[in-house]
């Protein structure tokens, strides 16, 4: 091979490696994005079934029920609540009335959580949960406003 050809071969090899890597990355990326939904969105049937997503909000007071390793509770954004099923050990900072984010799939209106996320700090609110509460509060205000302005 001439030096020119060698350089071409190296360049082509690099392009092939980078190209393959990019294809791999984008493909994995497409199929592994986890979207976030609020209880209100789930109530409005906006959440997909058969696909993993995240659900955030507050744990409803008095909703936590344990049977063996299975636990059922509800997550609310103060407007709507979604029942959640989880099997296993909940994080230390999981408490009724506190913020929570769960990851899993929706099956027949019940959120089957694969993972319930833990946080370091008791006063720390997961941004997703905070967002859900804020959206619900804004929606509330809007409904209130329409109710008032309606004749």
């Amino acid at each position, binding site marked *: *091979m001439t030096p020119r050809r060698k350089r071409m*071969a*190296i360049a082509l*090899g*690099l392009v092939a490696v980078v190209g393959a890597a990019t294809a791999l990355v984008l493909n994995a*990326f497409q199929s592994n994005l*986890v979207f976030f939904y609020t209880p209100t969105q789930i109530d409005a049937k906006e959440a997909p079934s058969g696909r993993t997503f995240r659900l955030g909000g507050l744990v409803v007071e008095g909703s936590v029920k344990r049977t063996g*390793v299975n636990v059922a509770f509800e997550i609310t954004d103060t407007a709507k609540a979604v029942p959640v099923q989880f099997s296993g*050990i909940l994080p230390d900072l999981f408490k009724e009335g506190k913020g929570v984010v769960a990851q899993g799939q929706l099956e027949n209106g019940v959120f089957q959580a694969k993972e319930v996320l833990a946080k370091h700090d008791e006063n720390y609110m997961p941004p997703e949960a905070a967002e859900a509460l804020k959206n619900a509060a804004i929606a509330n205000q809007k409904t209130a406003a329409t109710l008032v302005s309606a004749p």
Partner: protein
Amino acid sequence: MTLIPEIGHFALWLALGVALCLGVVPMAGAATGRRDWMGLARLGAYALFALVTVAFICLVVAFVRHDFSVLYVASNSNTALPLQYRIAGVWGGHEGSLLLWVEMLCLWTVAVAAFSKHLPQAVVARILSVMGLISVGFLLFMLFTSNPFDRLFPAPPEGRDLNPLLQDLGMVIHPPMLYMGYVGFSVAFAFAIAALLGGNLDSTWARWTRPWTTVAWMFLTVGIALGSSWAYYELGWGGWWFWDPVENASLMPWLLGTALIHSLAVTEKRNGFKSWTVLLAILAFSFSLLGTFLVRSGVLSSVHAFATDPSRGLFILVFLTVVVGASFALYAWRAPTVGLGKRFALWSKESALLGNNVLLLVAALAILLGTLYPLLLDALGLGKISVGPPYFDAVFMPLMAPAVFLMGVGPLARWKETDLPSLALRLRWAAAVAVLASLGVGALAGEVRLVSTLGLLMTFWVVGSVATDLWERVHPAGSSWAEAPAKARQIPRALAGMMLAHLGIAAFCFGVAMVKTYEVERDVKMAVGDTTTVRGYTFTFGGVKELQGPNYVAMQGQMQVSHDGGAVLEMRPEKRIYRVQQNPMTEAAIDVGVTRDLYVSLGEQVEGGAWIVRVYVKPFIDWIWGGCLLMALGGWLAVTDRRYRLKAGAAA
């Protein structure tokens, strides 16, 4: 009330002044050729270090003496907190960890000042100036947005206590190690900027830079490993890597640092890859800064996210933009003059190293995409998403597998041009060993699976290649065995270090493959007297009893474990409530072994005095961290090589 916090605060302002002088005067001196200005560089570095150290000691004293009139101390300490955690509390929160960061930066600056006697004065002046400028940025950040010496009036009688998760020996040393690594890349960065400015980018430059980069990389390796093992034993769910944004933030600089180390080898030995090496040096430090931004701005939902305010994030973002923008502009301006270096053939050591560099860089960029994309969407108001471990697993492993393959080939390939058939012939034993051993281990473990076989192939391929390399050096064709010991002693330390580090990768791959494939995780409900059997280990639950710690109360589980009816061992997992913050904390009980860890942690109490208990058996998990330790030791061995000691001085 004492004046000590005021002294610390004042020292930081003085340090800012000194850092400004250090950043400007020697640089101007190097540009104009004024020796007296350049001569100020070392003095400035020592003064800066002294002042920041005074500030650091002041904060330590405030912690040790329970000075709750300092807001930061009141939020991160408590009179019941044991002394070692009061000291660790200095870097337990945002403000203090920044101070630690700056202290580390000054330590590196002083080390450069002390161990650079053999370098030309202009080079030293430029390097120390660049490091001074970085200090300016961080000091400004600390003084304007996150002052650790802010007072609290009236002083509370008691502090809020250190986060219980951080009250742990691993957490005492993890941040300093990690920061030494992060900040250490600033040295390679400063060397690169100095070389771009001075136009003296050659193999001598690479030889100066190499030990510094390796030492920083070493600290980063140990720091990441410590963080990972801390997550394993302290978070209570037995995982060792979560692809958490903050973990990614430390892995990206590590990948780039690894690429840099290899690229520097080409620059030193062959005077090649020069602009590439400089680019990597800039990128490695930029990713360290980006990591700081990710961790410290609180923009990410992560286990490390503390409540933070947005002005901090903005400041770091601006700082990051200035540093990265300026250095890339300089790079674009000066790099074309650097030249490409010597030619090399398609099949050569250079090609293998180039391939490994590209793979490492692509892996770092893929992680960057997965880490930043959620941020970007959120910032644009397009909704909240997260990118989970499946993405990172799917991307990282296929990229690292060929890199590990090249790791077996590269060390045996020759510089400039290597004969492919003879290279393949030399590696035939390594390949055979890899295939047989990986299938053999699978068979021994009871089942052969694709993922584990792939991981094991990588492991034994590297082991085989290192063994071949060693064999050829100790017992070259035509030599007698009597010469072997003498030949072994002739192996330079740099080379031995490389071999050791590569064996570390092998050990790491082995641990990962074994844990991923053969671990058993079981959550079970256990009443007193219940037993459960996992992989031949029988766990018998003996109930819980209450226990008083220095600043917590604990429910301690009594778990008896026997293996195939043999010797009995007692494991005591705890559920702690720390008195001040009233947070529950799971303290797992781990029985560490070379071939397996037993892992027991308490979940919650359920009806009838029974508990939900996690019972895990993790085969060869400690090899993961053992591998990291080997890598770091390899780095150390390489740094102590004669040629750096004689010509370049020992690194820090």
